[in-house]
């Protein structure tokens, strides 16, 4: 297992958001992390990445305890595609991608020709190498997300964490990003952990799913078997129904429209 969490409890200022979680994700698989707003998905990602000290338990990446690794070592194993991407200064897309080489590039040095070629290859994989010279801040949300994804790929790590990669994307781009992630996870034998809200995207593109509810894992396993009506309505709310379209495609839709306005 590339990534393993044992008995993890973590929170802010003494109040645990998540308690006693155990989970593991294998190589070449894309795993969705689902749960309501504030259920602790992002907290869990930060904890896996070693950014949030946890009071209890153990995180191991490729068999090594995360607490014993320095930032540069972690960066060679885990890349993160952040949720909101904004740069206070105007960098070109290539410069943005190249930043992820920091763990490999000496502090007093700058990216070599070889690294630049590698960054261009990563941008090629997400289909944006024609944008290399364009200012990052002038791009649309979807294009920026592709640049951040290329940055993650350029970091060239066995594990990749994505925090709601779809939050700023239109319908077509959501599917494009997910399909790309699925293909890359297989091709590069990467472990991909992605936080998602849409159960349909989870069902179509993810091999495994972990559902977090009330500070613990409510259900975990292969997507097809795990995403049942019962589990989904427990985690996402009562107003959920699983159905099949005429073509035989699995869909999760609200049971009642308009929904009850009791927003949680």
């Amino acid at each position, binding site marked *: 297992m590339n990534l393993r969490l044992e008995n993890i409890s973590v929170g802010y200022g003494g109040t645990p958001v998540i308690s006693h979680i155990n989970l593991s994700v294998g190589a070449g698989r894309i795993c969705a992390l689902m749960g309501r707003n504030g259920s602790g998905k992002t907290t869990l990602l930060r904890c896996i990445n070693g950014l949030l000290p946890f009071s209890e338990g153990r995180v191991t990446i490729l068999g090594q305890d995360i607490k014993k690794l320095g*930032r540069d070592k972690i960066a060679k194993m885990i890349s*993160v595609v*952040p949720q909101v991407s904004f740069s*206070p200064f*105007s960098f070109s897309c290539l410069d943005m991608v190249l*930043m992820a080489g920091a763990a490999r590039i000496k*502090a007093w040095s700058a990216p070599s020709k070889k690294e630049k070629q590698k960054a261009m290859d990563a941008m090629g994989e997400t289909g944006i190498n024609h944008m290399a010279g364009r200012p990052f801040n002038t791009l649309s949300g979807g294009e920026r997300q592709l640049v951040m994804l290329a940055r993650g790929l350029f970091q060239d790590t066995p594990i990749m964490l994505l925090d709601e990669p779809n939050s700023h994307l239109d319908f077509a781009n959501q599917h494009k990003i997910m399909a790309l992630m699925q293909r890359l996870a297989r091709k590069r034998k990467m472990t991909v952990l992605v936080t998602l809200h849409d159960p349909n995207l989870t069902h179509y593109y993810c091999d495994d799913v972990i559902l977090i509810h009330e500070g613990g894992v409510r259900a975990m396993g292969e997507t097809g078997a795990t995403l049942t009506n019962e589990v989904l309505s427990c985690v996402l709310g009562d107003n959920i129904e699983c159905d099949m379209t005429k073509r035989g495609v699995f869909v999760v839709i609200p049971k009642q429209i308009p929904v009850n306005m009791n927003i949680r």
Partner: protein
Amino acid sequence: MKKTWVIVGLVFPVILFICLCTGRYPIQPGHVAGLLLAPLGFENRFFVAPSDMMMIFWNVRVPRIILSIFVGAGISTAGAVFQALFRNPLAAPDILGVTAGSGFGAALAIMFLAPLAVVIQTSAFTFGITAVTLAYILASLSRDSSPSVLVISGIVISAIFQAGLSFIMYIANPYDQLAQIVFWTMGSFNTASWVKVRGTLPLLLPGILMIMIFSWRLNIMTQGEEDAESMGIHVVRWRIFYVLVSTLMVACSVSVVGNVAWIGLIVPHIARYLAGSEHRRLIPMTAILGGIFLMIMDTVARSVMLSEIPISIVTSMFGAPFLGYLVVSAGKARF
């Protein structure tokens, strides 16, 4: 992009030459060439410099120009670094209190210690560094390690030292001490000498070089703190490194020539228009432009009026409208 560098590279020696000619005691361009060659043993058959011209040129004007170039380069580079660290194009190198601390230190020396240059400089430098250290300690007491906490701590410490400075000014003798303190807070190169050049260059030159060598990492420091961490940078440690080098440069400059307003903020902006935001290119451009800019400003300060104009008045008067012009006229914003 290459063209910009060539132009800047050509502009620098031209401006340097013009500044060498200009002053309260103007020297003809031909004579400047002769004066420059004289110490190298090239005796000029057509022009033998009179000894007073030789003295003014080599003991007053040359060290003053060298000092203004390096102070300009140092403060501007520090400004670019602070803008990157605080992810804010409006950050200035005095944001953590170095200028306020130095001002207080200088006033304290003028008022209560000996009003000797060495004492004032030492006191200004010590208090400048102390102010930033205090801001750092105050920020580290917070659980939040983000740069905004550091900025607030800087404001708090600045305010305290500013109050101290105001108090000293309030009780100072208005006929000598107060005038000296006021003149210090507005800065001037009028006391430039080889001794001051020798006192500042050993800090400024390695400082600027150090920032240039470690400039690529500044790109990553401009990204969100957690993003930078997940790309493998130990943000807190690197921030201390950059702040330390920049603060030493600013404290050493300010303690020798007094406060120099605006250039730490404006020069990185001009450099960004010319070289882009990528710090590998931005930092050298900032250093060169800072040198050119302050050299011109100081030449204005020492030439246009019978008496010296404090340098901060000139830098603000020219610098601020120039920034306004850049912002309005730029087709596409570079920041």
